[in-house]
């Protein structure tokens, strides 16, 4: 009975794959995407206990209007429920259901301009392949990669991608916080992808600004991809990542990688991880994964996790 229920539940989830586009007519398109990732995890550290962790519980709404002449107006609202699931006790002043992204914009061919609450351009940076990383993924993530008063430009070309964003400090407004200017560019030729990113950040109004920059390269050798990145925050810290992903079978990939953070203000840490991801042959929507990870800090035990992800 249990097995049957599971089968029904999974086939319903899998069947909704085709439900992403809800409406399409008279130039209007409405799509819903969802992302659910739930895992059993014991974090790296001293005497950590395992728990069921909700990584992603997201519903994304996307609306676009065709304005003719290859012009489109679009809007997106993403809701995230993971905090509602992870926190058993309500935290005062914290909303359980978070608005993850909310923006509107205009697209002209392959160029789009959008504004609202969204990720900064430097969020595109990074090659790490961990499912969960104890450290921040790169120095941009350690700085800031999301904004709520953001204007962003995206240009997609055949072999290149460019993004620029500006997060206003919004002094005096409810969304008052830092000011960030971000750039990201990547290009692809043969089987090589190269990318670079830059951020100028002023985390608090009136504080000194600092620069973060990074470069990355990844090479697709067919049987595997190999990648590395390096990012640096001036007078503060730098970090590198090395990662490789092997295709063990049509449905299975194995990822291994390490990251090293060297800090002028704290301890140096090296962390490594190895994971395996299985996707059902007939469904890209469902994947199962497992990972082990450890670092070289004193008094830490190895961390592990196993879980499932459903996307539609």
């Amino acid at each position, binding site marked *: 009975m249990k097995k049957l229920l599971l*089968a029904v539940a*999974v*086939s319903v989830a*899998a*069947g909704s*794959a*085709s*439900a*992403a*586009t*809800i*409406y*399409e*007519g*008279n130039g209007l398109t409405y799509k819903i*995407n969802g*992302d659910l990732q739930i895992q059993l995890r014991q974090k790296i550290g001293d005497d950590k206990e395992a728990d069921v962790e909700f990584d992603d519980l997201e519903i*994304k709404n996307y609306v676009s209007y065709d304005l003719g002449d290859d012009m489109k107006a679009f809007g997106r609202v993403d809701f995230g429920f993971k905090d509602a699931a992870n926190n058993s006790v309500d935290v005062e002043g914290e909303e359980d259901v978070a608005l993850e992204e909310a923006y509107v914009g205009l697209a002209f061919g*392959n160029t789009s301009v959008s504004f609202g609450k969204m*990720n900064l351009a430097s*969020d*595109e*940076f*990074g*090659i*790490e392949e961990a499912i969960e990383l104890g450290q921040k*993924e*790169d120095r941009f993530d350690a700085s800031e990669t999301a904004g709520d008063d953001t204007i962003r430009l995206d240009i*997609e*070309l*055949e072999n290149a*991608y460019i993004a620029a964003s500006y997060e206003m400090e919004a002094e005096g407004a409810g969304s008052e916080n830092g000011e960030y200017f971000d750039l990201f560019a990547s290009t692809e030729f043969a089987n090589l992808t190269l990318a670079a990113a830059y951020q100028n950040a002023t985390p608090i109004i009136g504080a000194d600004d600092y620069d973060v920059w990074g470069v990355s390269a990844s090479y697709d050798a067919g049987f595997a991809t190999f990648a590395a990145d390096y990012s640096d925050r001036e007078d503060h810290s730098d970090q590198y990542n090395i990662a490789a992903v092997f295709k063990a079978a*049509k449905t299975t990939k194995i990822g291994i990688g390490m990251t090293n953070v060297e800090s002028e203000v704290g301890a140096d840490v090296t962390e490594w991880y190895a994971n395996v991801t299985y996707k*059902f*042959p*007939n*469904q*890209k*929507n*469902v994947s199962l994964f497992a990972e082990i990870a450890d670092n070289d800090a004193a008094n830490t035990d190895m961390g592990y996790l196993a879980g499932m992800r459903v*996307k*539609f």
Partner: protein
Amino acid sequence: MKKNLTSFMAACALYPTLSLAEIKINPSNGVDIIAINGKPVESETFFSGLPQLKIANGKAQIVAEYTAEIVESADDYILEKSDTFVITFDASDTTVTVRAPEISSQYDLKAFNREGNWQLLDNQGRSISYHVGKLEKEGFQLDRDIEKELKVFNRTNADAALGSLTVETHNFHNNTPSHQPADNSHPDQKMVGKMLQFWFEQANEETRNKFKSWIETSL
């Protein structure tokens, strides 16, 4: 004895043609075959894997969609479906692999939706030429009736339209014939044979195949 021998010979003659005279469709990862020759493919349960996708030799028409993983940030992606494509091709006694090009950005997906550059390969890796068209539905997408949409599509002059699929065919059945000949009637066997041959030659591929399998199962 004579009857046994005839049926044995008929079976011998029919078996190789029935087992060989078909095309197998092999969708690559991410490719969804929604309909074959005007009929929707029954969606199998999650655990039973791929349905058996087979078509009789000759002109064939499939409806396919591709689910692409579009990179959204450094460590996330969303799943996006391509438009719904109608692909018509000619093949026999082979396995046709249906593939889409590599798509990882909205740019790639837009180009694919515009060009419909699918790849159809036979079991020796040679590409098969095809015609491609699109099925489009205005309005809510949850209640699409692919069979109906295909009927309309196949009546148009589109390159990928296959008019023969809109022709209704007879369903042979195995129960007792409705017109039982009187015991004493002796129809002219020469005429019967001539007519059988005549009508068989008039029949289209689908009717012929239905007829063959009817003979196979009712002998």
